[in-house]
């Protein structure tokens, strides 16, 4: 039995189409005439945040750059050509390869041609210039392979036959060029990485791991050994099945993360009722009063600390934490959205 991975999925188009039939990798960038800088993306990472690389020293003014240039490679595999073109066209596929550039905020849609017809299997260098005057916020980049001639053969076919029909596409990258105005630094960092290739991360099929090696700044690792899950977690939309699934997965991850943060923060309270690190204070400020139904955060913090340290009260405080997090995260809401999406009800 042939094993089909996600990259071989086809869409519901009425002809052979490869949604991930083009390998697209961005590897470096330059800002204006500056040095070429490596991107060093994690596997499955499709969001490239260049906001800090191009931000102005004066945050009230426009960032001081004119053009970002991104470099990378497009690879058109032989198997894609075989899958989307009939036999008689495979030697010289009547197709062009390009990268579509879109920016939602500036109502901008354009493309950069990488190869005119015929486009044969192989590797192509990609250079994409993004002028500041045309973009803001997030820029989307996605490669497409499109027919340039109609097929002259007779009869119905499994292949796209008309000029301008798309036959394959590749990874959609999101390049962030502006930092949102109100973005504050997150209390903990997050990153996607392959657990299987990092000795300090747990074995097995873990979805995430909260890393306390640096107690002053915990880090959340998401396991990109599971590409489909990592892909869903990176989806940016607000509608559709992927977005609904993403919100449910995030709820699941955040429940486990908050439990750990709360127990750690509560256990770190000293005799004066203080904690050492900023994230601990943030966690206690957010949850402690609700756990004990009091407006006095100091009192709540002491009670949490005491309850966590006493084997008699520990089960009860864990139950309180569970109850509070169900209120806070409200997983029911996202689950219902997902069910409505999945069941079409």
């Amino acid at each position, binding site marked *: 039995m042939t094993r089909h991975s996600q990259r071989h999925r086809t869409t519901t*188009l*009425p*002809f052979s189409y490869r949604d991930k039939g083009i390998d697209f990798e961005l590897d470096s960038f330059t800002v204006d005439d500056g040095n070429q800088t490596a991107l060093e993306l994690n596997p499955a990472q499709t969001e490239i945040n260049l906001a800090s690389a191009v931000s102005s020293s004066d945050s*009230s*003014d*426009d960032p001081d750059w004119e053009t970002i240039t991104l470099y990378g490679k497009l690879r058109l595999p032989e198997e894609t050509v075989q899958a989307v073109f009939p036999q008689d066209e495979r030697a010289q596929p009547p197709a*062009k390869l*390009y990268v*579509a*550039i*879109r*920016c*939602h*905020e*500036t*109502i*901008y*849609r*354009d*493309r950069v041609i990488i190869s005119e017809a015929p486009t044969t299997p192989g590797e192509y260098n990609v250079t994409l210039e993004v002028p*500041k*005057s*045309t*973009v*803001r*916020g997030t820029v989307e980049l996605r490669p*497409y392979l*499109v027919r340039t001639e109609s097929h002259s053969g007779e009869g119905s076919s499994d292949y*796209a036959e*008309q*000029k*301008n*029909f*798309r036959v394959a596409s590749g990874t959609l990258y999101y390049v962030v060029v502006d930092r949102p105005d109100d973005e504050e630094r997150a209390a903990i960092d997050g990153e996607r990485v392959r657990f299987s290739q990092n000795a300090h991360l747990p074995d097995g099929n873990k979805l995430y791991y909260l890393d306390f090696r640096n107690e002053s700044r915990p880090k959340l690792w998401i396991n990109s050994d599971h590409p489909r899950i990592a892909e869903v977690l990176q989806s940016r939309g607000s509608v559709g099945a992927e977005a609904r699934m993403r919100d449910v997965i995030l709820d699941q991850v955040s429940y486990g993360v908050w439990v750990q943060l709360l127990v750690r923060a509560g256990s770190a309270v000293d005799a004066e009722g203080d904690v050492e690190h900023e994230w601990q204070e943030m966690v206690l400020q957010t949850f402690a009063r609700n756990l004990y139904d009091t407006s006095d955060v100091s009192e709540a913090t002491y009670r949490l600390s005491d309850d966590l340290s006493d084997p008699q009260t520990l089960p009860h405080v864990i139950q309180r934490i569970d109850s509070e997090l169900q209120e806070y995260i409200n997983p029911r809401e996202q689950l219902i959205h997902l069910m409505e999406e999945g069941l079409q009800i």
Partner: protein
Amino acid sequence: MKGEVTLTDEQLNEYVEPMPGRPTADLDRIDSAVKQVLEEYPEYDTAIDGALAEEIHRGLDITRRTAGDPGLWHWLAVVRYPDLVRHRWEYRSEEAMREKFLGAGSDLYSNAIHRLWWIAELTSRGDDYSTTDAVFANQTMVNKVFDRWFARYQPAVRAMCDELADEPSRVIDETTRRFNHALTNVQLEGLSENEAREMIRQIVAESQ
């Protein structure tokens, strides 16, 4: 949103801030065009759009990046030209009027002034605003073309507006609908203006 309230500069200043990049504009030119429109056109006349679009596009020396900042359009609609917004748009609901003053962003059809600038931006060719004029001369075209996502791709929107300029509403409706449907298979950014025109001509011929 309804009724009359006069806001002083002091009341407004709290909410007004300089724009990044410090864009420039010939506001005198726009002032005079707006004044003329208020004097010459009756309330809620859709012809106001065509009379102002080119002047607003020429008067604002801005890039798409700047145009993507909602603050600019909020200032123009709320602070600079609120009388124009009320003259052009009849109050039908709080929500609709709020959109005309406080819409913007990627919704081409919201803010009263943003909408004029963007349609001119997408349809003008240098100093040639003939396609822009043709669009605003036909409200069906404004509604049916610019409410669709293909209108964000300049080669396609120009071809569409040129080819539909003299067509009746029924053909405009049918052609935009069928072109949009064709984009299920056709990748929009792959089309040159000529290729888009070729497709649209074929659809128009079939729709007549």
